[in-house]
Every structure is written in C-alpha cells, then in structure tokens.
C-alpha cells in the first residue's frame, strides 16, 4: 500500500463539491421540492400508548372542502413478514405496521390515519374530523417490568426467539442471545479485584435538525416518483415496494440533500403514506413531519439496562467479565442488543466471559439505528466498570486498557480474529497527548474511555464518465450526509491523477445509479469509495487501450502516470504522452465514450477504535456539569479529507456528551413523551461546549486500496463513559445512570 507521503490529493482539505450550494441556500433538502398542483399530507397519531383500534372512520375528513384523500391501516395491503437486511432493515410486516397502525396502536404518536388536502392547515383541520374508536390497554413502559412473565403483552404474537427450547407462550422479550468463552466462575476466582455495577440509559433521539420530509407523485400508470431525505434511497424503495405491494420498477426514489440522520433516516415513515395518498388524490403531495412528530414517532435510540462485572489480577490482567444487557426495542422487535453485546468486550483480550442480551418490547416508539447502534449503551457500562477497576488497582486508566488491549490476531469477544487494528496506537497516542499531562483543573474530574465499532462494508456501485474535455463525472448512489462527495472526488483524483477541481460528483437516484446500501455503518467512504476507485481503474485500463490503439502499439506497453498515458519505459520513447483530455477528445475514433464502472459487496471494513478523555467540572450546589476540555483520538485508517474526519470525531463527541449529560426521553405514566421539542429535549448548544481537540491516528486498513476505515460511528461511543468517569473523579462517587443531569447528580451528591 502507498505511504501517506506518496499521495497528491488524499490528506488535503479541498472545498467540498456541493459546498457553494450549501452556503447559499441553493441545496435542496427533503422539504424543498414543490411541484405544480401539489397538495399536502398530514398524519393522525394515536393519543394512547397502547390501545386496540375498534374502528377508524375517515368519512368526515373526506367530506370537508379541499380534502382529496384520506387513508387508514385498512387501505394498505397486508405486508407479509420478510426480513430486509442491513442497517435500517427489519421485518417488513413490522415496518408496515409502524408506518400505519392496524388493529392496535403500540405507542403514543403511532400513525392511525392520514389526509391529503389543498394546504397543510386544511389537512391538519381534516384530521380532527376522523373518528377513531379505541379500547385502551395498559401500557408496558418499564424495561424490567416488561420482562416479567406476567407482564401485559405489547404483541400477543411475540414469542421469544433463540431460547434453548421454543417458547410456549408469548412474551415481551422478543429475542435473547448469549456469547461466552472459557469459564467465568474460574476466571472470577483468579481475580484479585472484582468490580460490578448496574447502569441505566434512557431512550435518546438522533436529533437531526431536518424533520422527515418527502414529495411524492404517482402517474396514471401507477408509477411513483418520491423525493425524500434518506440515508438510503434504494432501501426506501425496497421498503415502500414491500409495504405497498408494488413492483420495485414502479418506484423511483430521488435522494434529496439530507439534513442529518445518524441512523434515524434509514427507515420509511412518510413515504409509503405519501405514495398511497398521491395515487388516490391523483396529485403530487408533500408531507413533512413536525418536530413533535419527529420526537414522538421516529428514531429514537434504545434505552437500556446493563449489569457488568469485571475481575482482574493485581497487575491489571482481566481474568473474567460478565454482562447482562436488556435493550428497549420500542413497539416492535429489533433493538440493537446484538451489536451492543458484540461490542461490549470487543476492545479487550478475555479468556473468560459471558454476555447475555435481551431485546424487549415496550409501548414506546420503535427504535431506529443511532450511530454505532447499541455500542454506546453497553460500552458505557464496561468502560465505567474499567474506570472503577483502575481506581481499585491504583492504575492509570490508559495503562489498564493497554494491559488488556486487543491487537492484530487477537480473538474478538464476538468471534473473529482481528486483522490490523489501531487500538493500542490510539491508547499510546492518548497517553502521549499534551492534554493528558496537563493537570486537572480545580473542581473538575478527568474521565478516560475507549470506543469501538465494527464498521460495515456492503454493496455499492459507481460509474465514472469522462467528458469530452477530459473533465470527470462521477455517479454514485450513497447520499452525502457529511461531505462524502468530497472524499469520493479526492479518491478519484488520486487514482486517475487528475486535479480534484475537474471532478463532479452526482448522487444518482434509483434509476440513475447502480444499487447502493444505506449511508450508514460508517461504510460510505470505505465501500462506495472502493467502488469509485475500481471504476477509475476501469477508466485507466480503457485509456491505456485507447492510447495503444492511437499509437499502434500493444496495451501492455502503455502505462498511466499523472493523469496521462505514457509509453512503458525503454520502448517507444518518441511517443508524446496522451492526457485524459486528449484521449477523451479522440474517443470517437478509438471506441466511443469513456465510461468506467464498478459494483461490489465490500468486505473487511476494518474495525474502528477510539480513545477519548475530558475534564468536566461539577457544581455541587446545582448539579450542573461543564465540559472544560475534551480530546478525541481515533484510528481512521487513512483520512481522505482530514477536516471531515475531524468533523465526524467532533460531532460524535458532542452527541455522546449530550446523551451523557442531558438528553433523555421522559415519559409520563401513560406513556406520553413529555419533552417532544428542542426546548425540553435539550441537545448541546454552542455555549455548552469547548473546542473538541482531535488526533487522527492512521493505521491503514489493508483491505482498502488507500487504507480507509469507517469513521462516522465510533466517535459517539466513548463520550458516555468519559463523562461518567470524569464526574466520578470530580465528586468521588459513581453515578451509574445517565443522563448526568442536575437532578440525577444531586440525588447522588446529596444521597448520603
């Protein structure tokens, strides 16, 4: 693999190709498409967290002026149970029920009907004319109570999966899993010190600033075009086709610019409803969620309860560890319990461990992926326990982790042997970082924690078209959520040997681009980037053939250097190099337009590791926590555009700190979310945060031509425990539950 110093474009920080449109208001996001004759759709949502729907009558709405269509669950085909893979996947029948309730409503805010009208205000008014008769049922709201054998059932047809014996009666526990190695009893017997703790984390929302939005139009042949903000328009097409029982060929999805997602825009909410309403109304329709709807009915991340026990020898060697992890799935199975279980011990060499996981139904919104889904919850518990262990042993927390850190060849707790990874490099970088040797300010505490995420590969496609003047058009299909057009253009420029400025990047719609899995799993720069590189290599090999044809020599006597075809050393030295522009200009004579392409299912994404530390100050009077400084170190494999890598690290750190310090879903005893707005669900604002110092470690991933590892998700994992460990250091007591909000903190500070 090429060394960093060999690169011309990789590692530079050019302006993103879509930049000007994004700073001038030209960029079009999900809610920004208006079509002639367009009408507006609104959704009626359940006022109960759990109820049987006895009847829905939309006739009152249909009788109102300016109302074009109204639908409820009965108007949707009955989607068959089928699994859709990947992030945002799940059972289609569940997705269909989540999009529009049938028979039962399962959370407060669950969609029960929808209306299309000439204005959003008229559609809103028409919702009030819809009559729904409910039989209210007791809501299942507490994670532990939901697991009891005699708990009221969220879903009477839910039988626990993965039990040693098939379940005989239904349960709110949708699935269990166990991972184990060695003998934990013996391991704990060998330990000189054992720490344990129980940690609760409430549901939290991804908090993207752009609400879900789409514009749909269906023609008289039943062919639909849907414009929407999505992390994966191909996945949205699959889901919508399944939910509406349509052919994939009759659905064209155009990914708009996307105003944040963090995993939350990997599933459909409005799109199938908009298509159905547009079809019935025979007009284009726009649907946009209110912020309150976003909080009540989309996302969130799973709430969790984790019990962790870790034993170690005096020298810090971990002898055994156990974890019991229960995750709230919300109304449908599918909490990221499995990923949480697989991540919790991943950074450490463990001979003896046992992990038990539970996916639990409750009458709360169906959870969605949120940045390294499942990992922050479980790793907060482990990284807090390790902090306690370091204290008991009198060891530096980084040294304790170094003592047990996995490296190339280590058997991961979740199964495979690690290939080349950069965990030890991150730990050593943290220890050597100037911020780590600074004294902790008066009244503050320092917290250290590690983060891990698998990263994903999956399917991507890319095309490269060479324009007649030699400039380059890339076509890929991964929605650009954080600057990925820029990393694609950099990798293309590096591979082709042409200037970055000569490359344009299109995120094609489902008819213009080959298939792509979602922008999720930190896969885009890795996997779609790999497709782009291969498509460029395809161009290079074609250019060599075209040059050979022009020169009348064999293609194997042509090489590609700095964006031009040159004769191989030693022969044909008299031939003048042919640039990409020269070859493009003459392409009609050598075989037609230059079009390179690649499609792949990328393997070996390269695990992501991070080490973070921060100094946090606690006001013992009010319980308010201030973040004084924060340092985040992460292995990016190779930073293609370092500014956007730093941005991922900084953004993830602040999201994690928000979850740690303040963010939580607060439900009343009826299951009604009490803080469905940014005023009461308070995400960090600029004045809450310091600068976030970053250090990019580069341990190249050998499976990527330039060494890329995914970087988007790992950054959110460590901050939860960094905050908890810093607060522990500051106040001398462990606060096990998040958020570390003033009431929770004061309860512990004053709790003697």
């Amino acid at each position, binding site marked *: 693999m090429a060394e960093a110093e060999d690169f011309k474009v990789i590692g530079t920080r050019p302006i993103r190709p879509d930049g000007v449109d994004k700073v001038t*208001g030209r960029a079009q996001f999900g809610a920004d498409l208006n079509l002639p004759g367009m009408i507006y759709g609104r959704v009626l949502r359940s006022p109960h967290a759990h109820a049987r729907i006895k009847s829905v009558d939309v006739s009152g709405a249909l009788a109102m002026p300016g109302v074009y269509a109204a639908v409820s669950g009965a108007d949707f085909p009955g989607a068959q149970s089928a699994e859709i893979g990947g992030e945002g996947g799940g059972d289609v029948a569940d997705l269909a029920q989540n999009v529009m309730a049938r028979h039962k409503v399962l959370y407060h805010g669950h969609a029960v009907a929808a209306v299309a009208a000439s204005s959003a205000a008229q559609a809103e008014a028409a919702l009030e004319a819809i009559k729904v008769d409910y039989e209210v049922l007791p809501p299942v709201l507490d994670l532990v109570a939901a697991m009891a054998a005699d708990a009221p059932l969220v879903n009477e047809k839910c039988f626990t999966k993965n039990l040693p014996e098939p379940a005989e009666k239904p349960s709110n526990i949708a699935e269990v899993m166990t991972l184990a190695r060695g003998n934990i009893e013996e391991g704990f017997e060998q330990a000189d010190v054992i720490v344990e703790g129980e940690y609760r984390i409430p549901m939290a929302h991804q908090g993207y600033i752009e609400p879900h939005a789409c514009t749909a139009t269906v023609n008289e042949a039943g062919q639909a075009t849907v414009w929407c903000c999505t992390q994966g328009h191909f996945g949205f097409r699959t889901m919508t086709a399944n939910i509406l029982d349509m052919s994939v060929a009759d659905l064209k999805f155009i990914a708009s610019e996307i105003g944040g997602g963090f995993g939350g825009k990997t599933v459909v909410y409005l799109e199938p409803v908009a298509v159905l309403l547009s079809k019935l109304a025979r007009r284009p329709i726009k649907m946009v969620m209110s912020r309150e709807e976003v909080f009540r009915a989309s996302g969130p991340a799973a709430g969790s309860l984790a019990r962790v026990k870790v034993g170690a020898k005096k020298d810090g060697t971990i002898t055994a560890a156990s974890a019991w992890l229960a995750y709230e799935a919300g109304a449908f199975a599918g909490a990221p319990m499995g990923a949480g279980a697989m991540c919790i011990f991943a950074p450490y060499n463990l001979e003896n461990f046992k992990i038990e996981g539970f996916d639990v139904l409750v009458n709360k919104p169906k959870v969605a992926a949120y940045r390294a889904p499942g990992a922050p919850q479980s790793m907060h518990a482990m990284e807090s326990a390790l902090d306690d262990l370091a204290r008991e042993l009198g060891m530096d927390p980084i040294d304790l982790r170094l003592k047990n850190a996995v490296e190339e060849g280590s058997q991961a707790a979740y199964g495979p042997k690690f290939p080349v990874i950069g965990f030890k490099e991150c730990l050593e970088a943290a220890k050597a970082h100037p911020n780590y040797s600074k004294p902790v300010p008066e009244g503050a505490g320092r917290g250290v924690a590690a983060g891990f995420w698998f990263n994903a590969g999956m399917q991507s496609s890319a095309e490269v078209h060479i324009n007649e003047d030699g400039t380059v058009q890339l076509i890929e299909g991964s929605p650009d*959520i*954080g600057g990925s057009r820029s990393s694609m253009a950099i990798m293309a420029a590096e591979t082709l040997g042409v200037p970055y400025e000569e490359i344009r990047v299109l995120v094609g719609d489902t008819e213009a681009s080959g298939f792509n899995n979602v922008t999720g799993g930190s896969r885009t720069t890795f996997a779609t980037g790999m497709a782009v590189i291969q498509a460029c290599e395809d161009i290079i090999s074609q250019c060599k053939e075209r040059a050979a044809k022009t020169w009348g020599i064999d293609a194997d006597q042509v090489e590609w250097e700095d964006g031009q075809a040159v004769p191989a050393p030693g022969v044909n030295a008299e031939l003048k190099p042919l640039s990409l522009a020269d070859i493009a200009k003459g392409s009609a004579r050598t075989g037609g337009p230059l079009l390179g392409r690649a499609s792949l299912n990328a393997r070996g994404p390269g695990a992501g590791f991070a080490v973070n530390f921060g100094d946090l100050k606690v006001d013992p009077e009010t319980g308010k926590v201030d973040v004084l400084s924060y340092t985040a170190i992460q292995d990016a494999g190779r930073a293609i555009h370092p500014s956007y890598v730093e941005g991922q690290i900084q953004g993830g750190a602040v999201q994690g700190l928000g979850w740690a310090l303040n963010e939580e879903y607060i439900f009343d005893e009826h299951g009604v979310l009490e803080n469905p707005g940014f005023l009461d669900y308070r995400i960090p604002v600029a004045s809450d945060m310091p600068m976030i110092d970053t250090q990019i470690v580069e341990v190249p991933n050998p499976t990527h031509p330039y060494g890329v590892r995914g970087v988007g998700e790992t950054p959110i994992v460590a901050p939860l425990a960094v905050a908890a460990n810093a607060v522990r250091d500051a106040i001398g007591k462990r606060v096990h539950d998040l958020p570390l909000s003033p009431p929770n903190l004061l309860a512990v500070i004053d709790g003697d």
Partner: protein
Amino acid sequence: MSKVHVSTVINGEPVEFLCAPEQTLVNVLREELDRMGTKEGCSTGDCGSCSVLMNGRLVCACLVLGVEASGAEITTIEGIATEEGLHTIQEKFLEHAALQCGICTPGYIVATKALLEKHPNPDEETIRYWLAGNLCRCTGYDKIIRAVQDVATELAHEA
C-alpha cells in the same frame, strides 16, 4: 379567513404576496415564494434554522407572521452573496468544513452576519453565546466557531 395582501422587501427587492393571517414568515418564504434557502427545523424558535434578518435584527422566521413582514426589509440566506461572489462568511464556512449535512448552515450564516455587525471582533465566548440559538447536530460546533473567528479576523483586515 381571507388572505392578506402584504408588500415587503426581500433581499433588496420589492415583493408582494398573499398569505393567511396565521401563516408564519418561514412558511410564506418557502411555500408561497419558493425561497427554500430558509430551513424549518422545529417551528418553535428553538433551532435557528430559519434565521433571517428583519430590519437588520436576527429573528426566527417561524416566530414571525407573514403579515408582520409588511413594510419591513427581510434578508434571507439567498441575499448574503453579492455580485462579487460569496460573502466572506460563506467562504470561511467552506474552508473550515464548518458544515456536514448543511441543513443548519443557512441559519448560521445569517446569524453570523448579525453577530459580526454587532460585535466585529468577538471573543470565543461571545460567538458561542450568540450562536447558542442555532442548533447544529453534526459538527460539535468546533469548526463553526473557528470559521466565525476567521471571518472576524479577515473582515478586520479588509476594514
């Protein structure tokens, strides 16, 4: 209720429109006037995505009624760049990679313009408090603050 006729000035140009009395300014800009640069993230004045200048004052267009624009001068994101090209704020946001998804960016650029008109040489704390009404979920704020600091330095040089 019948619609109201409103005469206003948007980005220096006289504009007339009809709107319902309860329609917000952000809704008028987007749905009646097709000026989509101003984004709507919450409709309750909490996220700042719809930041515009009204007679030079920074406001959330979701907390202003369309009829209140009558006789006022409104500046939106579409009015920040000039014939000479991008405004320094826009250039610096790009140079510093102070945006990831970009949905909050129009609001930040308008808010930064208002900030720098009031405080041409702000310290970090002033910038952080001025921009505390604009939510960004992607960047963790670091690069936004640095971009704004750089704009202030650059504009001070030019002055």
